[in-house]
């Protein structure tokens, strides 16, 4: 088991190194940030000075070595656009993204799983059609449209919810009193962006739950349970749902990562200060360190999650660790 874990850890590190190298190269293909930053009419000396400040005057291999060296020390560099360390800005924003992503995740589960179960249980009935329509709408209506409609109806017309930002509460790393309170304050700011973000993912949850349940409900062991006269409610809750949870949980985990890291459109529309907006700003302004930092942090989360899942698979199923 120890060897298996060490091998997975080694693969994870290689993946991260590859990701760092690719993102380092890719951002540099998008153009010269100095010229974009410099604005029209900026004199050459000024542009040269910016280039020096940003370390872009050095040969590419030196930039790369310095980038990897800084990464090993946990330093993502200085944002070109926001003029502060990327790590400082990222960790200021990350709790906001986590709050939005997790709330949207809960909404997508609460809406998607029961509706998917109902669709499967009452297959080819009115309920099933209703579930299918919701799934279709969830997947086909873009989040920005849902967001704008929510803003107009519940923000502007009815005035029930604020439309901008996350509210005054903040997660401050240096202030432990905010570590708990932050998650339970300003929910009225969270309601609309969380719904708009969760709505899209709930459509996918309806579909995956329905198809998973239908597959399980058609299996031999469910037929046997039914033949034994187990009440239908027990069949669903105890036997069917439990066994159809694996694909649902896999999708939910990936959805959560996506919602936390790249909720760009929803964050822009609701002016939610999350890491998605950071990535968007970084890409728009060719802010190399910011793009590198956000992408690497997202990659790190995915790699760590996969590593944990791999380790757990190896723990619960000896065949996996022995075969690798």
């Amino acid at each position: 088991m120890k060897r298996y874990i060490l091998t997975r850890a080694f693969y994870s590190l290689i993946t991260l190194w590859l990701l760092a190298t690719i993102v380092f190269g890719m951002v540099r293909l998008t153009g010269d940030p100095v010229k974009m930053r410099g604005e029209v009419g900026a004199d050459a000396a000024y542009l040269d000075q910016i280039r020096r400040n940003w370390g872009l005057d050095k040969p590419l291999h030196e930039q790369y070595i310095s980038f990897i060296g800084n990464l090993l020390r946990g330093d993502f560099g200085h944002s070109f656009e926001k003029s502060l360390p990327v790590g400082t800005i990222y960790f200021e924003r990350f709790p906001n993204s986590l709050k939005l992503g997790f709330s949207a995740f809960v909404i997508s589960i609460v809406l998607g799983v029961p509706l998917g179960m109902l669709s499967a249980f009452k297959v080819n009935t009115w309920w099933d059609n209703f579930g299918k329509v919701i799934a279709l709408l969830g997947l086909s209506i873009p989040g920005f449209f849902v967001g704008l409609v929510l803003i107009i109806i519940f923000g502007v017309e009815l005035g029930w919810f604020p439309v901008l930002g996350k509210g005054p509460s903040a997660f401050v790393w240096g202030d432990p009193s905010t570590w708990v309170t932050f998650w339970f304050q300003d929910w009225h700011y969270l309601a609309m962006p969380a719904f708009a973000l969760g709505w899209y993912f709930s459509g996918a949850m309806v579909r995956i739950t329905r198809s998973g349940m239908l597959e399980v409900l058609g299996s031999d062991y469910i037929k046997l349970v039914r033949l034994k006269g187990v009440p239908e409610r027990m069949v669903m809750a105890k036997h069917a749902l439990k066994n159809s949870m694996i694909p649902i949980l896999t999708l939910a985990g990936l959805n959560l990562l996506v919602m936390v890291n790249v909720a760009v459109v929803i964050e822009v529309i609701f002016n939610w200060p999350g890491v998605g907006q950071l990535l968007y700003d970084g890409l728009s302004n060719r802010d190399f360190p910011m793009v590198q930092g956000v992408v690497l942090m997202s990659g790190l989360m995915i790699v760590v999650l996969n590593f944990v899942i791999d380790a757990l698979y190896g723990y619960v199923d000896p065949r996996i660790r022995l075969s690798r």
Partner: protein
Amino acid sequence: MSKGLLSLIASLVLTFAPVCAQEAAAQQILPGPLVKLDIKDAQVMTARGKPKAALTIAQHFALDPGWLDPLEHITALTQQHYDYLIHDAMIKPMPQGVYTYSLAERAEITADFTRAAFRLRPGLRFHDGHLLTSADVKWTYENYKGVHAKTFRDKLQRIEIVDDRTIIFHFKAPFVEFLELYNGATTGIGWIVPKHYYEKVGRDGFKARPLGAGPYKFVSQEAGVQMVFEAWEQYWRRSPATKTIVVKGIRDHATRLAGLQTGELDLAYGMTGKLLPRVMTDRNLRWDPNFTGPWWLMFPGYNEPDSPFHKKPVRQAVSLAINRQFLVRQETQGIGIVVGNWLSPENSDALKGDGTELPVPEHNPEKAKQLLAQAGFPNGFDFDWYVPFVPYFDMGERVLTDLRAVGIRGKLQVLEGPAFRAMIIRGRKGYTGNRTIVQNIDPRPGVRGSIGVYAVCGASASFVCEREIETLWSKHQESVNPDERDRLIKAIQRTLIEEYYFVPIYWNPFVAVVGPKVLPEGKAVSRYWDTVHAPYPWPWEVWEVKE
């Protein structure tokens, strides 16, 4: 008896003190003949009110903490939004004039432009109570790294501190543009930074928590998202009227409008566009046209013989093909003004494009077709790209439709903002071929600066290289005679327009919208946009909002 004597002395002191102060202010610093400077006096309010309520502003892009540091000033006018909040300049544009005394109460430049002197107001302080002296002015100059830093460094011979309030800059050679560049409108070098604090907290520390001598103190920021400022009641000119100013970075147009409608925002910029009709019909909102600069067209590579735009009649046909009035209605709900110059009429030395000095461009498709036929294009011609300023793609399509109507056929090139800037900043090298039209706008103040960037051979964003203009420009650069310089700069403008090197379209409104909390009521709110060349409504200390 003694009480009466004391009150007599006190009244004498009160009577004569301002007179003495005025005399001190009027006392000449530099010997010899001086240039006559047109610098307006500051309006100082003696009665100090109590700041109240909060103003929430939506900037139309993510906020950069770098804007809080004048030492690294960028070319964009956006940084001045923050300069005017936290910092204060020696001289800066104010509603009463482009050059208005601020920290300085007196400025002098010798007639040979080799020395410039300033005297600070008495008793100036930074927000932490530390005195602002000529040592801070010197330190700011010496440590400035922003736009035009090299020019300032190369021209400087030495800085002489006469006393705590008086400073003299000695230049190696005549520095005719000094005041124009030192003025708060153009660079950050005249916005004074506290030496003691900057040295203590460093570059990053200053951006994270800046300190200045302006009307507002920095309170907090979330990088890119929000900045909060609080009134500094000891500001020398007056107490700010509004207690708290919150600036939010909100990219999305519709979100800014929603924020205004829900009352979460009191002021939003960049509202020209598709949602403008909704702004105009909302009874709770008021707007100011906030004219910035005119739109104009340029022809990269026009001076190469194989370019279709090489011949003047073709460029003239482009101008005649454009239905500017229609564009103004579609793009700005009729607010824009058709003008015949590519430079903002707010520049005192810009030729007026309203028919008095330069003609208002006409729309005459038939004449355009005739000119094309005369130029050898009876059936029109195809060109490669029409490149509009980002994100004005609808406007680009409309211009293209007008051009197609006379036979000038091209495709729209849709770029993103940084890519457009990166191309234009490279000048001729930014565009391959010579069959492209570029649509641009640049609200920078100063005619000289604009010509130096866009209309001179080899300049950073120039597609123009004409012997006639070069001759005029060289004479202008060599001259220290203000009248001659003015005449030369106007001659260049006339050539650019009459030869159709540039084709102006209309003077663009960069509409700003205010919510119901902002005082005064009604259209009088437009007084906040009285400062010329200001795309944003500074100074901030005069803004009033309801509680």
